[in-house]
């Protein structure tokens, strides 16, 4: 580690040791630190490659009266995923007085449900749509008897978006945007947003300059356990002529999202609907470098369930925010105090099928329209994804909990060029969780998952079974010791292996400071967050994570 980092650590420990001293100033300070280190090999069927990463992130925040100063020092040598840094990678100054907030520097922002703007960071995926600019926010309530609430944000700034799947590609955007909402009476809220962006989108060595505009309006209603939300956004992207697009183009796209839920004590049901048509293109035009795709800081609700257990999240659906329609229904029900049932159903697909209308050797796809294009379809040609999930969680007593689920998923990625080579995956998964606390501070947690899968792209054995087991023993408040085991009979797993074993130890040396070490093999696979997915290579080696928080 470099000399500076030792100095930083020394300073951090001095800071920690004095955190409780009582000099009263109108100054507040907080800091946090994350260190990640890993060394080992990434496995594939043909070869093993050495893998090493070192990431050190130190965040500090200084509050002086109504001002907040913040900075992040990042030292990646190298980063595990994404584009690394060895400098101050985040800095900002924020002023907050009553209902007014102004911020200059780096920030993230979310407008409504994200159809216009949802800038965020997902470090495990290497995804970052952080702004560098200025943001002004104001909220106020007029009147007391019949209050009218208003809320608004204006922002301007730039985003350098490094393609998380190809870090040599960076898209550059200059954004000006605003959002507002007004609640004239208690149950209704009306809102809208506008975004203008100039962008430079590289395709190989050629950069396409684009200008985009998005208008969005939304409406929400909340009354006696019923909550309704509706949002619609319309986007136009104008390209400036270049070698790829000799003539300026201005395709328009739109998207809608809605949700309705009903809740009462012991019961809740939510129905989500999405209809994203921001970039309806023929199959041969679908590309991650398409300048007319949804902007990287547009991230609308995915309308599919997201899991935290290993096998349930093994074959996720990669959402295409440019062309997808679907719905999701989710129910929570507690018939008795100790039992909670969660049921989820979802169906998603593309809007249209296409056919080759050219009778020569060339290819020219044309759309096959359908009347019910506002609903998803289960036809293979529309690349459907559907899922049914049922889970019951039962507390036998205060110390013993059992959770059992069952999931059925189908995901099809249709190939119009060769339908027989379409990627069809079907899974049937049963997750079981048992948790027992004894002698007040000791705990045992068992997670067992069984999965039967079908993958059409496997050359020989298309059906295979995977079993995952994790056992963790803990002693509050300091120690968790765990082991993870996974076995499969899949002869064509990308790692070339059939058995993975991994041990973990977490030690909390104070309530906010912990260290986690693990050693062994991990199967890897597709990892997703908010509909964004990347393939994570199987890994075999040592990992260290140190988390510190000094408030």
């Amino acid at each position, binding site marked *: 580690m470099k000399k*500076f980092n030792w100095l*930083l650590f020394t*300073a*951090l420990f*001095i*800071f920690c*040791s004095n955190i*409780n001293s009582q*000099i*009263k100033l109108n*100054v*507040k300070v*907080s800091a946090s630190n*994350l260190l990640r280190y890993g060394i080992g090999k990434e496995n594939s069927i043909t070869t093993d490659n050495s893998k090493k990463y070192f990431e050190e992130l130190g*965040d*500090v*925040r*200084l509050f002086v009266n109504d001002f*907040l100063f913040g*900075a992040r020092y990042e030292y990646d040598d190298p980063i595990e995923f994404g584009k690394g840094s*060895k*400098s101050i990678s985040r800095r900002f100054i924020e002023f*907050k007085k009553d209902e007014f907030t102004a911020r200059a520097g780096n920030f*993230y922002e*979310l407008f409504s*449900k994200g159809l216009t703007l*949802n800038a*965020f960071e997902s470090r495990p995926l290497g995804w970052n749509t952080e702004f560098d600019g200025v943001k002004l926010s104001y909220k106020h*309530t007029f009147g007391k008897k019949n209050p009218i609430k208003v809320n608004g944000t204006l922002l301007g700034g730039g985003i350098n978006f490094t393609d998380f799947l190809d870090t040599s590609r960076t898209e550059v955007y200059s954004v000006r945007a605003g959002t507002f909402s007004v609640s004239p009476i208690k149950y209704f809220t009306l809102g809208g947003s506008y975004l203008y962006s100039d962008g430079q989108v590289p395709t190989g060595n050629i950069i396409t300059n684009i200008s985009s505009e998005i208008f969005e309006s939304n409406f*929400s209603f*909340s009354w006696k356990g019923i*909550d309704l939300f509706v949002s619609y956004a319309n986007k136009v992207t104008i390209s400036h002529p270049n070698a790829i697009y000799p003539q300026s183009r201005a395709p328009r796209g739109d998207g809608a999202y809605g*949700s309705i*839920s009903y*809740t009462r004590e*012991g019961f*809740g049901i*939510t129905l989500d609907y999405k209809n994203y048509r921001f970039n309806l293109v023929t199959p041969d035009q679908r590309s991650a470098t398409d300048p007319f795709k949804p902007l990287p800081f547009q*991230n609308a609700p*995915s*309308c599919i369930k*997201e*899991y*935290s257990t290993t096998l349930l999240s093994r074959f996720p659906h990669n959402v295409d925010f440019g062309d997808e329609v679907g719905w999701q229904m*989710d129910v*929570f029900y507690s018939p008795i105090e100790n039992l909670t049932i969660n049921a989820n159903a979802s169906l998603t697909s593309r809007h249209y099928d296409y056919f080759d209308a050219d009778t020569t050797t060339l290819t020219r796809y044309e759309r096959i329209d359908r009347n019910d294009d506002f609903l998803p379809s289960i036809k293979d040609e529309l690349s459907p994804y559907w899922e049914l999930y049922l889970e019951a969680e039962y507390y036998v007593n205060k110390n013993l909990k059992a959770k059992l689920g069952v999931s059925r998923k189908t995901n099809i990625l249709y190939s119009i060029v060769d339908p027989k080579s379409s990627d069809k995956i079907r899974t049937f998964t049963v997750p079981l969780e048992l*948790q027992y*606390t004894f002698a*007040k*501070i*000791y*705990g045992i*947690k068992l997670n067992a998952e069984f999965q039967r899968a079908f993958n059409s792209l496997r050359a020989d054995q298309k059906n295979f079974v995977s079993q995952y087991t994790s056992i963790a023993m803990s002693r*509050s*408040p300091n120690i968790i010791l765990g082991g993870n085991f996974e076995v499969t009979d899949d002869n064509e797993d990308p790692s070339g292996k059939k058995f993975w074993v991994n041990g973990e130890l*977490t030690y909390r040396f104070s*309530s*906010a400071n912990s260290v986690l070490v693990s050693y062994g093999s991990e199967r890897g696979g597709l990892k997703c967050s908010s509909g964004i997915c990347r393939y994570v290579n199987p890994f075999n080696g040592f990992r260290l994570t140190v988390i510190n*928080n000094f*408030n």
Partner: protein
Amino acid sequence: MNKPAQLFFILFFSIFSNLHSQTYDFDLNDLDGNSIKLSELMQKGPVFVQFWALWCVPCKEEMKVLNDLYIKYKDSGFVYVALNQDSPKSSAKVKSYIESKGYKFQCLLDSDLKVFEQYGGQNLPFSVFISSKGDILKTYTGYILGDEIKLEEDIKLVLKVGKN
């Protein structure tokens, strides 16, 4: 990293390592759209702020425990508030989950993670215990089975329950 930047960080930690840690106010909407300020909650007593998300299993374990502690100590002035971190993909389900569990504490929406960031949160579970005067008493990362014993001790200590 260049030398001025190094000096900035070293000076920052050195100068401010002796300052008293206090919290700052936040203003978020609850599940019914009502605006809730931390400063208003602090008027009732010490506030336990828990950050959670639907995908975070240990957060929900901790939430069940904190709900029991909230019921037990709310008459003594203990305030528990859960700040939801779910992104728009699942924020519509949050109210459904809370209602189905019959929880009575306040749940606020921090979908853009602004408050989480200001408290220096890195991973979930993450919680901050704030005194009625606004001092940050303790920060918690992670949740281990059996932590309820320590949590209850901390609450009793702050409320001075069971002491003569």
